[in-house]
């Protein structure tokens, strides 16, 4: 019996049939990690502790909903007594004294956190090339990027090492790597999941979510991840539905918004064809296509690249070598301590964003950039609010194309920033969105994005699950279709 490429649902059934012990599951996870060391998907492992927990589950049967399910945690979530680097040199020695609410919630539901996954430094990047701990490999091909920033999580799930992982999504960091690695990843509504213990990149956009093999597994994890958290004042108090219950609802007469303003002409023909095939599939499930207009959508990328760097420039000020993390040696004075620590501690992309952010917030530029960007953000949100009066979901391709070669976009940050063209608007508007595999281009997977209305994760999970009931794109693995 193996758990490789197995979904949570399947592993749960193996456990209940007594086909495998909890300890065997965890031991296999670590074996798979070692076999896949080339992927560089993990920064820190939690082997001893995880095996101990598995043995406890073997000794005392548990009713917890995710008892013994191995999960990989993005290294952006603080984990008590387990090194948390955020992919950065500046935190390479940081061991948090507390755990993020996301980790606590999942462990309280029975999940075993098997290790911390590699990521773009401070979640800034779309290819995992900005990590201090080296590139992550996409299991679908040598030298292919896994996407970013949750690249380690996407790679680990895609390679079948773990059934699920946590990710965070500020402008597409769950959905884009999910698309490029052929898995399903969901960014919830802003405020659904507590940000306590998530190392902040852009606080008003950051949201944690599940990455898994299927929409159904995403629902299982999301059920446990969400909670109203008094430690996070932006966490929502709204009732949290059971996301599993609505998975099989009929799509008959449901309305899918197709964005007229979206120019698909710059995309690879295959991407467009795959997208249209998926729409047809949904039509055959009874859904209707409705043209909608999001007139300010084209402003998403520039708006995002003002708001996100502004917030990051402030959020990253605490990494100064004074209290925690790395501190440069041999400094003469305070000024040099700051300059040297931050110069050595941060990589180029992080520095670039801190500079952009400091610039747009500085006296004399604030109104022209930051304030204006916030106003445009409001317009984008209004566009979505209007659109959702008549539709249930919006569909777009998740990415402009499949996984690209490492280094191919290295010198042109703008090209890299455009990777998030389709995903960014959901963050700006705070809406939930999912990416699920809907085709292959030259044996490289690609994803469909479904954006939902505020707090309506249930509907996008329902759409995704019904699609996965009818198609097998989510069954493809780098080693061929899963039996």
């Amino acid at each position, binding site marked *: 019996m193996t758990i490789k490429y197995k979904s949570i649902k399947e592993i749960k059934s193996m456990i209940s049939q007594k086909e495998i012990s909890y300890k065997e599951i965890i031991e296999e996870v670590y074996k798979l990690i070692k076999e896949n060391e080339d992927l560089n998907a993990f920064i820190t492992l939690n082997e001893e502790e995880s095996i101990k927990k598995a043995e406890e589950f073997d000794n005392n049967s548990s009713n917890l909903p995710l008892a013994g399910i191995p999960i990989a945690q993005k290294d952006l*979530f*603080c984990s008590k007594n387990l090194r*948390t680097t*955020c992919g950065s040199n500046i*935190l390479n020695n*940081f061991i*948090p*004294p*507390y755990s*993020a609410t996301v980790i606590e919630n999942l462990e309280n539901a029975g999940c075993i956190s098997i290790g911390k996954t590699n990521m773009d430094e401070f979640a800034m990047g779309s290819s995992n090339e900005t990590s201090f701990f080296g590139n992550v490999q996409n299991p679908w091909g040598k030298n292919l990027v896994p996407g970013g920033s949750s690249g380690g999580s996407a790679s680990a799930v895609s390679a079948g090492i773990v059934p699920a992982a946590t990710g965070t999504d500020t402008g597409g960091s769950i959905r884009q790597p999910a698309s490029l690695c052929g898995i399903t990843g969901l960014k919830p509504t802003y405020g659904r999941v507590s*940000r*306590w*213990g*998530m*190392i*902040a990149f*852009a*606080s*008003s956009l950051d949201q944690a979510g599940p990455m898994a093999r299927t929409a159904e597994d995403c629902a299982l994890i999301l059920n446990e991840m969400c909670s109203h958290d*008094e*430690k*996070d*004042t*932006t966490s929502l108090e709204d009732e949290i539905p059971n996301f599993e219950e609505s998975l099989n609802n009929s799509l008959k007469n449901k309305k899918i918004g197709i964005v007229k303003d979206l120019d698909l002409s710059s995309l690879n023909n295959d991407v467009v064809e795959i997208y249209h095939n998926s729409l047809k599939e949904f039509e055959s499930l009874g859904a209707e296509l409705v043209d909608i207009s999001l007139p300010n959508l084209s402003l998403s990328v520039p708006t995002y690249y003002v708001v996100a760097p*502004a*917030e990051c*420039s*402030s959020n*990253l*000020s*605490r*990494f*100064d070598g*004074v*209290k*925690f993390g790395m501190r440069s040696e041999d400094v003469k004075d*305070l000024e040099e301590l*700051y300059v040297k620590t931050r110069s050595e501690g941060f990589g180029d992309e992080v520095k670039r964003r801190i500079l952009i952010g*400091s610039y747009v*917030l*500085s*006296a004399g530029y*604030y109104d022209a950039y*930051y304030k204006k960007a916030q106003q445009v953000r409001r317009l984008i949100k209004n566009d979505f609010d209007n659109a959702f009066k008549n539709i249930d979901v919006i569909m777009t391709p998740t990415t402009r194309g499949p996984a690209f070669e490492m280094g191919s976009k290295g010198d042109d940050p703008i090209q890299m920033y455009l990777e998030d063209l389709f995903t960014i608007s959901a963050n700006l508007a705070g809406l939930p969105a999912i990416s699920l595999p809907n085709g292959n281009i030259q044996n490289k997977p690609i994803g469909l994005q479904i954006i939902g209305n505020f707090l309506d994760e249930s509907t996008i999970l329902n759409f995704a699950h019904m699609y996965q009931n009818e198609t097998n794109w989510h069954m493809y693995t780098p080693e061929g279709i899963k039996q």
Partner: protein
Amino acid sequence: MSWETVIGLEIHVQLSTKSKLFSGGSTEFGAESNTHVDLVDMGLPGVLPVANREAFYKAIRFGLATGANINQTSSFDRKNYFYPDLPKGYQITQMEQPIIENGSIKISVDDYEKKINITRAHLEEDAGKSIHDMFEGETGVDLNRAGTPLLEIVSEPEISSAKEAVAYFKAIRQLVTFLDICDGNMAQGSMRCDVNVSIRKSGDKELGIRAELKNINSFKFIEKAINFEINRQIKLIENGESVVQETRLYDSDKNETRSMRSKEEANDYRYFPCPDLLPVIISDKELKEIKENLPELPEEKEIRYVNEIGLEESEATIIASSKTMANMFEEASSKTDDAGLVAKWLVGDVSALLNKNNIDIDESNLSPENFGKLIERISDGTISGKIAKSVLEEVWETASDVDQIIESKGLIQIQDENLLENVAKKIIESNPDQVKAYKSGKDKLFGFFVGQVMKETQGKANPKTVNEILIGLLK
């Protein structure tokens, strides 16, 4: 040429909440370094602030007492700068939407009164403390204070002299202590103040270029620093030079201000709305509750003392001027039927001691309880007024308990008429000349006999009884 001074004050008032503005960390003063610090106060990666409503309630009390607008929706911004005692690299403050705007307070200086307008009062978190003198060649950081709630009260530039500035500071201090929102303890840094000073030709409308004097924490230094700064600016201009906009530090040892940083070197704080905190909304119900539970203010106390208790107006003014004085009055009055006696002691002997030592009553050794006991012992006849004075002086020096002093020094008043009569007879017998003179009409000598009896009894005799006995014997 005559010059006019324009002064504006920014007073930081530490609000007396139990926990910090954005965390559950304790705000208690004087604990061992870095023991009152939780994850949020340390600014660890991933932590988030949660606003403490109690701090809002306290700020609102101040707003209500100064007739200000209360912004029922207020929000937080980040002020970004690097300093080791600022754990997050930014301070959370209220820039765009402060909780309080447009209030005023009355000050009195020598023989006139003046209204000073308050532009705004906003909530913000305090920084920690850098400790430069503890480790050779290194600086320590104590984060106990980091995150303590401050109310920054910003006045309009309407203050015209160092004296007015001190009066304004005193008025704010009096108000915040009465409102029970700050302990007013300046030595512990519970109130600190930045002063903006500029001068202009008398009659000019335009403001002159200002200097900001940082972090002055005593009445004495406020006055000295401002006066030094006024003279410095006048001299500069009269010598044909100009004042530069800068931040200056007051050195109390040398009594001078010196440049800390110029406008060009000033930080660009890159303010922007704090994305971790939603705007705080105060409901009508909350506001109503705060209004209804507003403590009695000095002016209200004064009126009550005159109308209901029957104090002289001058007494009422002095007693209502400080929270501790008023507390003492109220506590001691509850121990006796004679509130007038309490007032007489406070305005008389206690005030005299305060003036002599040039301190405020809350800096003295006299506690409301102990003072109440003193009054109780006078009115129940245990000690005489004269003895009471010496007991008060003893308390003043040692803070010992009144009853203990009376007991250990054997000061209990002698009431025994037989005993006193014997003493009086002895005095009369041994002073035949004075008796003769008294009887021939020298009435003033009566005091001599009283004095002798008191001397003989070491001041412990009940003066009223002694009077009665002597009148009888000398008939």
